[in-house]
């Protein structure tokens, strides 16, 4: 069974712990006076962050865990404060005394530590990487995040789904459409309605456009991190073209506010032409980049994640596919009828992740042709029913999971697990045979989200 998520809910006198696998949901209740659970991290190492987060959020004790350090609550966060409990309603917390965080380190003669971040050299999100080094060789890496933790889960409680929308679409800028589609699916479950095919196609078109933008950006940045800047010029030009197209269709360069229930006019003729011209550019890009041996010398065999590890760590998205694991939320009738093809690679290295991005990009273009349709369907929503809802979407990073409990018409509990949340926990496995100068390249080849991870 593939582990997907583990999270808790405050149910008055008890905590409910939900453990979600691809084929089943397990629920368990523990009394608040003795909130003790058993860890899953021995079988599913990816459960570790979920459990450490529960410990911070609710004060749940994970008895046999080998790692009980705080996750979300950093050095200056007040101790014994569990903000996801319903009785916590402070809007302001003061910094408390600095308590050092014990990093996982390897010690020994000549072994030294390299700390990187949270503010990085480039224009990227904040996060911390802690290396144990023997000369250039990386012995171990601990990834520490949650610098962009905004407490989105708490922020959304007590809001209606409509009120929550502008916040949900801004959780992670690169995956805005994917988050909106998750929100849409939950809304439709709550109103007990089916989405008309025409709207489904419009939304799927936008999701693929978002994926295109993300992959094109990476196709530029990955070679750039190996010192091949020309690819960045071309990749970022194509990404900018796609972003302008997003603006043209949705009125926003990142598609904020794009997913709604009215199908608006699309100039299908010019969009088909545009897709053809993108196809041409991408074919040219592929033909050109495949032919640069000094680049592939860096990409091949760098940052390998073996298939066995990819399964063990329950990875999803580009990382899983590059290691040979065909996990994709788009494997369903709707997408298959519109030309979806699952792509995988076997080598699990940076090169494999690069090739997956090219293949997905080309597949997206094929599907986008099929999604284009002139239509003016409008869906009027019924009143929403209370309940517990879950939805999944394949974002540009991988499987996105969102769950919302609605009680008395407002959100009782919101939880989202970005693909990055599980994938970040597998990144340190890729460093075994590489030197520290390879790290930026490996990290970029995964291109995971910080904001989506931290919530």
């Amino acid at each position, binding site marked *: 069974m593939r582990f997907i998520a583990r999270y808790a809910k405050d149910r008055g006198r008890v905590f409910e712990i939900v453990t979600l696998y691809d084929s089943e949901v397990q629920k368990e209740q523990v009394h608040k006076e003795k909130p003790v659970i058993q860890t899953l991290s021995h079988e599913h190492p990816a459960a570790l962050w979920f459990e450490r987060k529960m410990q911070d959020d609710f004060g749940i004790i994970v008895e046999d865990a080998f790692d009980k350090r705080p996750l979300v609550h950093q050095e200056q966060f007040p101790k014994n404060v569990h903000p996801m409990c319903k009785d916590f309603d402070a809007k302001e917390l003061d910094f408390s005394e600095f308590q050092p965080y014990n990093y996982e380190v390897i010690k020994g003669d000549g072994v030294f530590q390299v700390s990187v971040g949270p503010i990085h050299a480039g*224009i990227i999100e904040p996060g911390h990487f802690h290396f144990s080094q023997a000369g250039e060789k990386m012995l171990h890496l601990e990834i520490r995040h949650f610098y*962009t933790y905004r*407490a989105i889960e708490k922020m959304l409680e007590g809001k209606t789904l409509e009120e929550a929308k*502008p916040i949900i679409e*801004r959780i992670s*800028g690169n995956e805005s459409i994917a988050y909106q589609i998750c929100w849409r699916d939950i809304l439709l479950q709550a109103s007990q309605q089916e989405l008309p095919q025409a709207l489904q196609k419009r939304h799927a078109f936008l999701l693929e456009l978002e994926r295109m933008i993300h992959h094109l950006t990476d196709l530029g940045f990955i070679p750039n991190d190996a010192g091949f800047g020309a690819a960045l010029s071309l990749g*970022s030009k194509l990404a*900018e073209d796609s972003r302008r197209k997003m603006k043209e269709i949705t009125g926003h360069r990142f598609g904020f506010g794009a997913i709604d229930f009215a199908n608006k006019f699309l100039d299908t003729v010019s969009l088909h032409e545009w897709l053809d011209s993108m196809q041409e550019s991408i074919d040219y890009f592929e033909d050109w980049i495949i*032919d640069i041996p000094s680049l592939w010398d860096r990409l091949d065999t760098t940052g390998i994640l073996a298939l066995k590890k990819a399964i063990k760590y329950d990875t999803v998205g580009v990382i899983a596919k590059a290691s040979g694991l065909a996990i994709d939320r788009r494997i369903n009738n709707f997408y298959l009828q519109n030309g979806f093809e699952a792509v995988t690679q076997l080598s699990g290295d940076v090169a494999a992740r690069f090739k997956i991005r090219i293949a997905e990009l080309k597949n997206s273009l094929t599907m986008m042709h099929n999604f284009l349709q002139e239509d003016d369907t409008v869906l009027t929503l019924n009143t929403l029913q209370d309940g517990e809802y879950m939805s999944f979407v394949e974002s540009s990073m991988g499987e996105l999971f969102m769950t919302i409990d609605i009680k008395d018409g407002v959100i009782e509990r919101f939880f989202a697990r970005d693909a990055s949340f599980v994938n970040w926990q597998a990144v340190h496995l890729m460093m075994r045979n590489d030197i520290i100068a390879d790290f930026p390249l490996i990290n970029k080849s995964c291109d995971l989200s910080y*904001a989506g991870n931290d919530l």
Partner: protein
Amino acid sequence: MIKFWNKRVKLGILTENPEFEDEIKTIQKEIKESVKKKFAGSLALRMVDSGSCNACEAECNALANPYYDLERLGIYFVASPRHADVMLLSGIMTFNMTPHVLEAYEQIPNPKWVITLGDCPIMQAPFERTFAIKAPAQEHIKITHHISGCPPSPKEIMQGLLEFLKKI
């Protein structure tokens, strides 16, 4: 590689949207002159994300693409606050990032300025105040200029930088 040069020679220079390009050109010209006059030809920016959704960062990265090409005007994103003249601050000042933002600000040599980028740092984005948010930024740090938008487009960022240059 030979295919690349062949294509480049054949294609020449393309302009898809003359009106937009002209506007950008005017802004670029003014920025270049201003940077030359006020910062001896090179203005160094240190981008700090204090908890944004990555859209502002993506737009700053877009400033380096061939359409906008900010470096040509003498504006650089530098790798360390110690190399910077200006801190470009995006994000909502999370509880966990605020101490690091202030530390980075300390590291910037005088004279220094802070420009806030996007609606988050001034608490105008749809996010609501929680215990994990310390925005607005002006409560912690002196802000010289603000570039609004969610996120501001590359063109708006360039315009904002120009306004900043005129202001100081």
